[in-house]
């Protein structure tokens, strides 16, 4: 009897361990399904904003890096 109990307990613990990721995935999916997703119009707006920002900052940054090229050429 006691042995059976032990077995059951051990089994339930393993089950719990296996359940944790399942529970996690379930919670995550539930959350995702409740989420508000962007529509096409909103999405294009976001992508454009981020794209312009990234490219603008990148070009300014790359301009500085271009300064390196002649300096490197002079000193190496």
């Amino acid at each position: 009897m006691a042995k059976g109990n032990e077995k059951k307990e051990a089994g339930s613990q393993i089950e719990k361990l296996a359940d944790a990721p399942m529970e996690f995935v379930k919670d995550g999916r539930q959350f995702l399904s409740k989420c508000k997703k962007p529509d096409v119009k909103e999405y294009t707006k976001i992508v454009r904003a981020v794209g312009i920002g990234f490219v603008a900052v990148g070009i300014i940054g790359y301009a500085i890096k271009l300064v390196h090229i002649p300096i490197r050429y002079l000193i190496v």
Partner: protein
Amino acid sequence: MAGYRLVDIAKPFLPILPEIEISYEKVPFDDKIVYTICSGLIYLFGQFPLAAISKDEVRVQDPLYFLRGVFGAEPRTLMEFGLFPIISSGLILQLLAGMKFISVNFKLQQDRELFQSLTKLFALLQYFVLANIFIFSGYYGENLSIVQIGLLNLQLVGAGFFAILVSEIVDKGFGFASGTMTINTIVIATNLIADTFGVSQVTVDADGHKEAQGSVINLLQGMRSKHKTFLGGLVSAFNRDYLPNLSMTLIVLGIGATVCYLQSFRLELPIRSTKARGMNNVYPIRLLHIGGLSVTFSYVLLTIIHLLAFVLIQLVARNDPTSIICKVLGHYETVNNLLYVPSFPLSLLTPPRSFFSGLFQQPLTFAVYSGFMLFTGIWFADQWQAMSGTSARDIAAQFKEQGITLTGRREQSVAKELEKVVPVASTTGATLLALVTIVGEFLGLKGKAAGMVVGVATGFSLLELISLDYQQSGGQSALAQVLGAPGRF
């Protein structure tokens, strides 16, 4: 010793550690833009080749090549370690303090100051240790003279010191939000442009043929170059291994678009005012509640592991495949005369250099690396959301202060209701970001995928704060008017 705390280590250093002054008055919006951009540009300018490196052929190559994208680090320049020491010391010490391994009472001004100085000191120490690891590993050439070692130390630690201070300028309110993150985003954006449109010519083979760094420029050049056929140029533009190629650029752009899409996922909780009737609104909880920080943290851990391995393999065992350490940990193989690629056990945590070679040569990497990214990312997300001051409890307190409550809930149960949402949002967001990173890295992006994920996610967090700042300043910005883009923010 009883009563001696870790933060007390910083005490004797307090008088000599430089501190940026906080401005007495509010820094105007335009000044913030200027300070932020200047900090970023100075950092970029700091990616300047180190002097006093030996000119002979070096055997030891770059062991961290796939980790550099996340920390704005450039090999063999002043920013050899980039922002890694600052970010890692900030994240790790905050985690330790939040989990009560370091006792700090954040309510006391004195303790906060000590903690902050400790973070700075720890970052500086990391710069020093890393610099010497790299110097003595032979990465800058073997048989360096004492003068060279001294000069290299001076350059690397000095650069680290200024990186800390420059990021502190932005942190202290002269720029937007966070120094490390703004600088990081600027560097990632710059790298993206350099990888796509970069015109600098790099010698790629023994014959002295040169190719452009940027993938698009390379395509145009490859079609006209003499040593390649038209078709060969086209093919190599898409799959060259040593420099950015077009397929990489396309994947990176795809990753950016995916993160943009995920970023706008949000759960809108209906709220109403407890003071005025009929004031209904929504409070959004983002899917990416903790932004790109989870991926950053995973990469901090990954870097630490690889650095330790580098110390053991290169510094202790001299990368000798017959020594015991190399048999246990694996050794490095030089690829393209540019990279140091680890072999078996260590390669489990190294994303493959291309999808197919990875699939056939190191299939186990896929499982181990993904597991590592997912596990650390989720663990971090769970810890960070609870301690960062935007946990369910904090949001509930904030609601109470502003006289807001969730529609259909009593004020007391707001925290409980949020408790069901916020941790799930953080961990789910971290999982998805980790998955995007994993997919990108397995396609052979060598750290560019992680960099892009962090860059775009961080960019969003910053954009939000910047637009808030813009509105608070009443939309009065000469710069924004000059640029004619008030709607951009």
